[in-house]
């Protein structure tokens, strides 16, 4: 704001702080819970000060797993989720860059049709086409594989649209200059278009990594073996125990662990991410 009014400044800060507290408090409680011993939680005596079982709980969750529910070390689903999110994010970016490149820079029959077909898939998320997709993946024997986990999620209308919009803002003269400089389409793509799209790619990577990381329904259907499970499903399975108390301190530790990679990705790419969504470098 241009004006300098102390009251407005204080008020806006108060509102912001309230917002932050509302968002951050549950996360903090989860963190505190992950540092206590089982009895404290089951007694309902959770304090707001972290206890000293932090290393013990996290080590146990990562390398041994729960005693009563899944009994799986959580390092495996964490790795699975990471691999899945990486393949989905990179695959989406790769495919979308190529399809946007084709749609924007090449004249071929049914070019617009191709674009609209891609656009239409926006209205068909995985959940809508889940049965046919499952059937195909099962028939191709891709259940319980990384391919089965990721390939159906890779095709992305969102990323294609974003890159298409970006490519259309690249001045035509750049292509013409490239042509005269002796760069063919492929060289233009690699030497000029890719470096210019770096910020958009970073933004897409962040969004798609989180999208992949947070997948729930699809991995739930497609994976049956414990060693192919993703972390989101791992958490869910931890909570279902029969005739015993849920090991909340371990579940909370897993939750915190599950939150870390997306946070790291966002923090690491924040500068590029914001630039990619707001400005275009030309």
């Amino acid at each position, binding site marked *: 704001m241009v004006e300098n009014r102390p009251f407005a400044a204080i008020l806006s800060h108060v509102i912001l702080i309230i917002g932050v507290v509302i968002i951050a408090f549950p996360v903090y409680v989860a963190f505190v819970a992950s540092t206590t011993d089982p009895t404290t939680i089951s007694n309902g005596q959770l304090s707001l000060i972290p206890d000293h079982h932090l290393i013990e709980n996290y080590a146990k969750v990562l390398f041994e797993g729960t005693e009563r529910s899944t009994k799986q070390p959580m390092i495996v689903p964490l790795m699975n989720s990471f691999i899945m999110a990486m393949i989905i994010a990179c695959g989406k970016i790769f495919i979308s860059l190529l399809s946007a490149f084709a749609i924007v820079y090449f004249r071929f029959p049914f070019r617009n049709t191709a674009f609209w077909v891609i656009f239409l898939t926006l209205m068909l998320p995985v959940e809508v086409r889940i049965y046919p997709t499952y059937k195909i993946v099962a028939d191709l024997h891709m259940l319980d594989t990384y391919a089965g986990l990721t390939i159906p999620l890779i095709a992305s209308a969102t990323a294609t649209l974003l890159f298409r919009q970006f490519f259309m803002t690249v001045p035509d*003269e750049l292509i*013409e*200059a490239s*042509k005269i400089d002796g760069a063919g389409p492929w060289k233009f793509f690699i*030497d000029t278009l890719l470096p210019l799209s770096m910020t958009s790619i970073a933004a897409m990577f962040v969004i798609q990594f989180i999208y992949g990381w947070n997948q729930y329904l699809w991995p739930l259907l497609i994976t049956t073996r414990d060693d192919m499970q993703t972390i989101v499903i791992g958490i869910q399975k931890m909570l279902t125990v029969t005739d015993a108390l849920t090991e909340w301190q371990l579940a909370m530790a897993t939750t915190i662990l599950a939150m870390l990679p997306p946070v790291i990705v966002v923090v690491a790419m924040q500068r590029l991410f914001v630039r990619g969504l707001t400005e275009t*470098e030309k």
Partner: protein
Amino acid sequence: MAGVLLNSVGKTYAGNIRAVSDISFAVPDGGFCVLVGPSGCGKSTLLRMIAGLETITDGEISIGGRVVNQVEPMHRDIAMVFQNYALYPHMSVYDNMAYGLRNRKTPEPEIATRVAEAARILELEPFLKRRPKQLSGGQRQRVAMGRAIVRKPQVFLFDEPLSNLDAKLRGQMRVEIKTLQRQLGVTSVYVTHDQLEAMTLADMLVVMNRGRIEQIGEPLYLYENPATIFVAGFIGAPPMNMIPLAPATGVPAGILGAETLPVPPTGAILGIRPEHLHLDRGETALGDRLRLELKIDAVEAVGAETYFYGHLGSTGPRLVVREAGRGSASPHGIRAFTADRTQIHLFDKVSGNRIEL
């Protein structure tokens, strides 16, 4: 080095829209040809056809004796300077200039020598490591020139390269381009809508209108002998004064000595450049001159010259007079001017063509 030859070149876009038609001219080796005309006259399309960025639908273009209709831009041995420079924003100035050479597999030491030489000529040495974003408009313009120079092409193509610069820089760059082209002796085709640029740069001026050539020639020849009303009005600033003459109504009021002009039955346009009208010093004998009376309604004194604006015979067409020096006219009132008969132009009103006097 090589000349550029256009042989009845035409361009028709889908939907039968004709952008240019029947263009033929030859730019001699080392010549500087300027295509000039109002926007939409097809001059840029023509340049892009020479560059290979647009397909040629009729006729032939040859560069250095080789027909290039089907040749890709990179194999035409041309370099182009774009209006918005089209520098690669993510590359340094050095890489921008080196890119075309690298794509042609020029050895790296050779590239370094050529870029250094271009940078020296264009005074870009301190900026080689910078990105285009960190340069001023004039410097970017120079980088675009540099990118063309390092390639040592047979032909330079310029697409309104100066129109994004401010007036002062434009004048400066104009001189630099001219000097550079002389120095390098590379055949150049230059597109502009600015008649001043066209006049000062060209060895050979091609005036275009509505996709056709109006006239080709040396700038001063076109200035002195415009073949059509369009050329007469386009070249020269302020533009030539146009006075309609109709045989039916006789000579308009305020003009003396025009009775003997060979006006065709359909009417004519009398053209007199502002600089060819002079204040009447009161000589009694009109001799070989025309005498025009203007009701002056504005006078602009800019120091070196004075402009008089007024209406012929107080209600006739509006005319401009450029008089050298500070002038002495009171702003208003009726003043008489004379024009030498050898310096006036007459055009057919219907066809627009020149009528020789």
